[in-house]
């Protein structure tokens, strides 16, 4: 097909709207025949239309039968939104094009119908696509597929969801050799890397970079009241935020976690004297509630919406003219993308305000503003494709019918992230899927996959296909429980809370969900029953939320800021706070390591300001607590942020120098890799994705931990009897790359070169205070637990008047 311009019908339609197609939209049309095409455009740049124009132009000719274009987005909501947005031009141009979405929310009947008679355009998510490829009839359903559009590919490229998607695309490409791939991405630091993931390896991928538009109008919100020393609520800023909401048409108020969004929304309502229509939107809310907010937003009924990353990606919310980011942005790239949500008009500057939640975040916000101004985006390179996702893909492939190992290997290595996969590594994964891959060959008779006489692999028990599909997916959500209002016949669903949080509730406790305070009444059939209650101060729901880590670059900017004699660019309160820290203790320096030691709440605390990023600080926490355990200091746990690690235990550390001996730390690495809870957490994720642990079984959901034993037992067993098992290797690799990040510890140790300053104080310091409120505390099992249990046992028996 020759490169083409805008068909007359489309030209007329654009003209009737008084619009003109953007240059990059026309360019995408001209390059419609490219096997692989990546478009980088800022938010509001008409990216999605650019992606769909060639499809619509093709389909307008009316000759195509069956599925033409598959659209994949990271969010269910985005798929629904795009469906709405595509409908308008299609209907107005009078095109007969069937557009449908397919997500976890689509009904079973609808899903079945789609497999039999697919629409022209199917909008879906990576998870739903992976499932689609696992059906025997996949080749029939996808026959004739011309194009795949991966929207917001920059977001998918950062996670295992992206790896899963690219493996599914490799599968699709085998079914439809002529399929063309299109990626749509927001502004990123390294377009080449994303292009490498998108293209069929080793094919090239065209990159088209649209005009980035004018610089955003971005500032830090100035308030009369100073932010607190710690905490993430930003309650102090409520009046100022309310004033901004009143001044603007529609404001998006972003938060880093769901819990923070809930608290902020609650406080905003209390301050909402004019009863402005304000909504809340996050991933733990019930779908019906979310859809109601989305619809109100589209109609322009809402003046503000308090949200989390669930609104991060390009849903078109109409006339947003202000974006407020509450809490430190953590990452400059993400900040720029969020800011782009304001003013969805191309070539108009977006307006944004940063609201630091505490004084440390003031520093971070100022550093981020400087980075945005300098167009200094940050990014990290991801390693090779994870093998747990590979295992899941092999199982899904088996569910769709018999396969030949060599052909599957070839197919999988055509996904960029797996291009370097060796045949031996692939065979390991296949063996794991088939037999469990244990040194002790126990399951010859009960293999999951069996090799037929003709050499093809297939499921031993065809019924296993349903179980495999039920457990597909790479998103590791903590187990959640549904929350409902208590009624005689099942009350209104409100949303979900984490199982661990639910377990901590006793009847009468109150918590926030969807902006209202509810009272916990009890647990019924794995549903949390609550009643409305507006009188008590809420306990806070602990949603998992997404935790971003501050980029290296931003950390370095902060350290440099600390070194200034004074801080004219910071508000007085924050400059005062830094001065106070300097007076009471010291400020961290780039070439020294500051370590503070102080008692609090009956424990001894050690705060290590390594500024090495969350993962490395986490590893440091693990290594240090292990050393402390050996030294008899009875550590109990730690928490890490991007700039520091706080360790608590029963005894104080007198001399930190032996703790930081580089050789000892490195030697400790292997030892602790074995037995800590972070490894167990990593293992749990990998084992679930790889299909060793089933989250869902055909029988109804089991009653949580009572019926099943924990993945920790499996980890301990493998560690003892089969430490080199594939899943243990995956766990180690993943930990080293993601959670461990030992390279940055090395870098930090080299930077400080033994210059360690221990400051002993009798109370918490200004800089360490925020750490006490961090979530994600890691517990350390050891001597401390035995000592505490002995104490408690003695006290309990004494209180109860019991003796032996």
């Amino acid at each position, binding site marked *: 097909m020759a490169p083409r311009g805008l068909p007359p019908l489309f030209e007329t339609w654009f003209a009737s709207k008084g619009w003109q197609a953007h240059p990059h939209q026309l360019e995408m049309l001209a390059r419609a025949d490219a096997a692989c095409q990546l478009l980088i455009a800022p938010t509001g740049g008409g990216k999605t239309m650019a992606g769909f124009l060639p499809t619509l132009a093709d389909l307008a000719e009316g000759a195509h039968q069956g599925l033409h274009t598959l659209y994949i987005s990271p969010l269910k909501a985005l798929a629904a939104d795009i469906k709405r947005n595509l409908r308008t031009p299609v209907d107005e141009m009078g095109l007969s094009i069937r557009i449908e979405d397919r997500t976890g929310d689509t009904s079973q009947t609808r899903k079945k119908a789609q497999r039999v008679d697919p629409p022209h355009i199917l909008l879906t998510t990576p998870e739903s696509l992976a499932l689609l490829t696992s059906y025997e009839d996949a080749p029939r359903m996808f026959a004739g597929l011309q194009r795949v559009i991966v929207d917001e590919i920059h977001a998918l490229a950062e996670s295992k969801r992206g790896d899963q998607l690219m493996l599914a695309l490799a599968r699709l490409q085998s079914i439809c050799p002529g399929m063309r791939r299109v990626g749509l991405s927001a502004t990123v630091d390294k377009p080449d890397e994303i292009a490498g993931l998108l293209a069929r390896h080793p094919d090239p991928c065209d990159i088209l970079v649209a005009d980035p538009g004018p610089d955003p109008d971005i500032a830090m919100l100035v308030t009369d009241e100073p932010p607190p020393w710690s905490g993430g609520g930003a309650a102090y800023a409520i009046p100022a935020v309310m004033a901004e909401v009143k001044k603007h048409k529609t404001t998006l108020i972003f938060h880093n976690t769901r819990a923070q969004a809930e608290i902020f929304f609650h406080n905003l309502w209390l301050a909402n004297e004019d009863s402005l229509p304000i909504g809340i939107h996050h991933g733990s809310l019930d779908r019906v509630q979310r859809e109601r907010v989305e619809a109100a937003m589209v109609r322009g009924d809402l003046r503000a919406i308090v949200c989390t990353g669930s609104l991060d990606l390009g849903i078109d919310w109409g006339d947003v003219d202000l974006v407020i980011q509450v809490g430190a942005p953590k990452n400059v790239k993400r900040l720029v993308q969020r800011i782009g949500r304001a003013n969805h008009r191309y070539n108009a500057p977006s307006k944004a305000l940063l609201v630091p939640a505490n004084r440390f975040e003031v520093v971070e916000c100022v550093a981020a503003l400087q980075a945005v101004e300098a167009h200094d985006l940050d990014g990290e390179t991801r390693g090779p494709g994870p093998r747990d996702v590979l295992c899941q893909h092999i199982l899904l492939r088996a569910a769709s019918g018999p396969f030949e190992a060599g052909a599957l290997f070839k197919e999988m290595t055509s996904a960029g992230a797996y291009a370097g996969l060796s045949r031996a590594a692939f065979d390991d994964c296949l063996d794991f899927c088939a037999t469990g891959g244990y040194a002790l060959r126990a399951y010859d008779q*009960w293999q999951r996959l069996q090799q037929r006489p003709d050499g093809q692999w297939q499921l031993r028990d065809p*019924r296993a296909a349903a179980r495999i599909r039920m457990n597909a997916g790479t998103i590791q959500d903590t187990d959640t429980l549904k929350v409902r209002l208590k009624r005689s016949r099942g009350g209104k669903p409100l949303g979900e809370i984490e199982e661990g949080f639910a377990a901590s509730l006793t009847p009468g406790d109150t918590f926030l969900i969807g902006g209202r305070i509810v009272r916990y009444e009890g647990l019924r059939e794995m549903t949390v029953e609550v009643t409305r209650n507006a009188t008590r101060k809420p306990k806070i729901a602990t949603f998992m939320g997404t935790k971003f880590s501050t980029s290296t670059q931003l950390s370095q900017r902060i350290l440099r800021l600390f070194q200034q004699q004074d801080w004219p660019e910071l508000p007085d309160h924050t400059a005062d706070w830094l001065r106070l820290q300097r007076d009471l203790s010291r400020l961290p320096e780039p070439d020294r390591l500051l370590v503070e030691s102080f008692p609090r709440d009956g424990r001894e605390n050690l705060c290590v300001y390594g500024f090495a990023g969350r993962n490395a600080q986490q590893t440091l926490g693990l290594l240090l607590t292990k050393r402390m355990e050996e030294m008899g200091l009875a550590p109990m746990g730690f928490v890490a942020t991007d700039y520091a690690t706080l360790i608590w235990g029963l005894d104080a550390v007198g001399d930190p120098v032996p703790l930081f001996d580089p050789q000892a730390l490195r030697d400790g690495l292997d030892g602790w890799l074995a037995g800590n809870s972070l490894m167990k957490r990593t293992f749990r994720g990998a084992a679930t994705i790889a299909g060793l642990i089933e989250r869902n079984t055909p029988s109804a959901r089991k009653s949580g931990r009572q019926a099943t*034993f924990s993945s920790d037992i499996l980890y301990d*067993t493998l560690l003892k009897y089969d430490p080199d098992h594939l899943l243990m290797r995956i766990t180690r690799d993943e930990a080293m790359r993601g959670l461990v990040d030992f390279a940055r510890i090395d870098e930090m140790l080299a930077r400080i070169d033994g210059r360690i300053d221990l400051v002993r104080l009798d109370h918490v310091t200004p800089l360490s205070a925020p750490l006490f409120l961090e979530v994600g505390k890691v517990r350390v099992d050891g001597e401390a637990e035995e000592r505490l249990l002995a104490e408690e046992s003695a006290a309990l028996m004494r209180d109860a008047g019991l003796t*032996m």
Partner: protein
Amino acid sequence: MTGLPFTLAGAQLTALGSGALWWEERSILCVSDLHLGKSERMARRGGTTLPPYETQDTLIRLENDLQHTNAGTVICLGDSFDDMAAVGALPEEDRLWISRLQAGRRWVWIEGNHDPGPIGLGGSHLAELPLPPLTFRHIAKPGKSGEISGHYHPKVKVQTRLRTVSRPAFLFDSDRVILPAYGTYTGGLRSTDAALKGLMRKEARAIMTGQTPRLVAMPR
């Protein structure tokens, strides 16, 4: 060997940190809910292929307890196998291992709900075993006394000064003791569950397993 002594119906018993019960006077070691062959059963039924080491791990711990106590009698309190087919599927070396453990001592398999039939391994097979003043059976019977049972896999959760600790535990009162599950691949039932609260007297106590067994009031 760490253990915590207590009395039931006048018999002096010791709860071992491993989860086994030791009746020194009669030289009896009692363990419950070994669930041997659990991973084999899961794979057989089309589930996942769990690390097939739990039988080995359970037997190692049992062997340790036998070495320390040199018990003359071993009573396996039911659910020793995850199902009857798992008995047949036991690898030859594990059968030999069990035979070695049985050598020179009396061995009793009590019938459980997972393994209701006779087990084709050495030792005697009984629905229950009265050894006055005590009776050994798999599932506790309300109203009985001097009873040793298992089945429920009890565990308790204790709020210490700074942390919540949850572990498998013995539950006991003046009528009975319920043993924790001894098998490696076993979950637990909280002592706060209605089934356990209904069986145990209000003043019941719990002994948490672990490096050093700990006595606490049974959390209800």
